[in-house]
């Protein structure tokens, strides 16, 4: 059953001898110890497990590790470079755009994917892009503001 699955993980070539039908979420968490990617519902409805695959936000609970083979996977742990926070992470801190923090990694990954595709989204486009990432604490207002700030910084406009 086990196969060698190769993919790019947080900028590094990675391979694992693993059952390819396993969920990417649990492989990231338990095989690679990348626990920043959270289990929130396991059904793709909450977005806490969002990672980037080839720069697209994807719900890692809905994907098998086999499907990630050959692709470029980035998790929350892979965003900061040389200890420097990614502009989206930095903006979340600046805006206090989190409370319990459990949905935060998924929010940040989803927002990063959104900004990669559309570097200067309107408020409505941010709303639409974040729509299906759930936050129960109600940090929505600050998350939108953080994404706006990050968008400015990533364009170098700030």
């Amino acid at each position, binding site marked *: 059953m086990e196969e060698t699955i190769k993919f790019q993980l947080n900028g590094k070539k990675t391979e694992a001898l693993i059952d390819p039908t396993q969920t990417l979420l649990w492989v990231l968490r338990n095989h690679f110890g990348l626990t920043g990617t959270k289990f929130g519902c396991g059904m793709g409805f909450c977005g806490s497990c969002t990672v980037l695959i080839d720069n697209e936000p994807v719900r890692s609970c809905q994907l098998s590790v086999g499907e990630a083979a050959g692709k470029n996977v980035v998790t929350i742990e892979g965003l900061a470079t040389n200890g420097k926070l990614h502009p989206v992470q930095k903006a979340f801190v600046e805006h206090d755009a989190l409370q319990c923090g459990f949905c935060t990694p998924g929010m940040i990954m989803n927002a990063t994917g959104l900004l990669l595709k559309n570097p200067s989204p309107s408020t409505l486009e941010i709303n639409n892009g974040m729509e299906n990432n759930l936050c129960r604490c109600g940090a929505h207002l*600050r998350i939108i503001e953080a994404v706006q700030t990050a968008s400015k910084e990533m364009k170098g406009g700030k």
Partner: protein
Amino acid sequence: MKEEQIKNQDHQHNDKPHGMERRDFFKILGGGIFIFFRPWKAIDLFGLPAEQGRSLPKDYNAFLRIAEDGTVTCFTGKIEMGQGIITSLPQMMADELNVPVEKVKMVMGDTDLCPYDQGTWGSMSTRVFGPYMRAAAAEARGVLVDLASTQLGVPVSQLEIRDGIITDTKNPKNSVSYAQLTKGKKIEKFLDVKPAVEDYTKFTYVGKSYKRSDAVLKVTGEAKYTGDLTLPGMVFARILRPPSHGAKLTSVDYSGAEKITGTKVVREGDLIAVINENRDKADEAIAKIKAEYSFNELPVNDKTIFEWMLKADSSVKVLRSNGDLETGRKLSDKVFESEFHDPYLAHTAIETHTAFARLEGDKMTVWASTQSPFGLRDDIVRELRFPAEKVRVITPFVGGGFGGKGESQQGIEAAKLAKLTGKPVMLAWTRDEEFFYDTFHPAGVVKIKSGIDKSGLIKFWDYNLYYSGSRGSDTLYDVPNSKTTHYDQKNGASPVHPLATGAWRAPNNNTNTFARESQIDIMAAAAGIDPLEFRLKNLKDENLIACLKAVADKFGYVAGKSPSGRGIGIALGSDAGAWVAHMAEVKVDKNSGKVQVVRIACAQNMGLCVNPEGATIQMEGCIMMGLGYTLTEEVLFEGGNIQNRGFDSYTIPHFSWLPKIDTVILERKDKPPQGGGEPAIIGIGAVVANAIFNATGARLFRLPMTPARVLEALKKV
């Protein structure tokens, strides 16, 4: 018999402090200054369940430490679940000890290291726990100043403290730091005094905005929640669950599960679980168990529940009464009778109930997402018959609670499985389990009869509350004849609530504020008076009047009779010692019945505000979360079967719902701090209902105000 054994067991340990022995405690922590105290009042203990009362430490417990490097550590049984006390409690400590706020560290929710605490709920951390914590800090400061006086050879009155350095005011070169003073020392002080009333105006850190101190950990994925922990040899567990509450297992066949690679089935009585090193395999295995059940469920569902409650044989208690209702009725020109319905609600924290348990020798350690680490410890002591000092509960970051993690069944389950398997067991409930085993916000009915005279003054108020809690049921308005009656579960009668119920952010106040403020609005409209003016006319409470005026100002309110077509609503209320008022603007699509909340303003008076930024975030969170119970959230059930068990069928607020939010915190530096994590949620149902009425003339008596219910109400206009 069982009860007797527990008592005996407890008696044996009666004369010892529960949790860690103090000498062990010192071994872990090293030297420094320790202030011990009891952060609870004797009187509070009467309200505790018996087993909790019995397991309270008979000794003082460590609370505050100034280490040999000058760092201040606050040990508290409170936990951080997003509400921000990890940031605001250090502000209070920093002020009392005159140290930079960054020097204050928190150790939270560890039952071996922290003083006993009932739980983190009811907006109690700042207003109840805070004063005790500050008193201990003041005691520590006293010790430090005495030491400095000796060391520097000058009287205490000649010393000044700044940023953890004590200086001789007559010779600034003559100074000593906390670190120098505590080096190589081990000083214990036992605090037995009530905290003194503070002068809240003198603070440096308190009252200033601080950003979350845990933010960097949380944006990088480094913050550890219970499910993120690992230990060698650990396994994941999944538990066999009944299809509905009240179902009894009649037969089970787990041969299919055992065929899944690496799976072991464990059973103790009704607890049947699969364990596997791989979570996916555990998920696969649990689905292979074939089980049959017998059903004996209450013949009630989410539609019939209200009638069910009104018909039940209830205990009847008059909570408040003044004047005479009949006199008030005679003085009334118009009389109003309404019935309001509120459904069961789920908490749906994004982190499901999670626990990680390890049995090492005879010591059980359970890491859990819980709002009550000591409550969970006591549960494990009771259920597993462990001595209290052999159970340690540790609380990592908690991914949201909202009242739902006051009960921690998952912690008991994980502990049992760790004992049965001998392995560290990780149990993270599925979303389905989270909905099924939630302790829901209780459904309830409120019936109000009230009357106004020709001038629009309220003459009587007859408030009847069924099976919801009484928090927030105060009349608040200045009414000469009023009565508040609570119909609730009768002792010995079969349970009226078919589902488990518990605290849900500002427990029951949402229900009561929805009913009261809707009824006030109904009367204002019938009197032909602007709803703001009507409220001001009938209020005497200065705090509520100030909140109303502040919110009207922020909102830019223009007076007008309701309905006006403008879609503007008002509501006010009180919770956790604080006062709030809301205004909202809505748009109602009369074809679909869909309501969009365009903007909400909220003014809150919470006494001294420790961290205005933190408090503002809580208010914004309350407003956004409140839109859920207002517009969509409702647990659907038939008998004991919960029908909506996922985010696809139980809809919580999404980004597209976000209204423009304006918040005002009324400055009250002269008043003690009150609760800030809950008050701003209580008026959302009412303010939106009143705005819908203002927009359309349709009155909603039932939460949530779904498009179907709005359409139904529009038909009656």
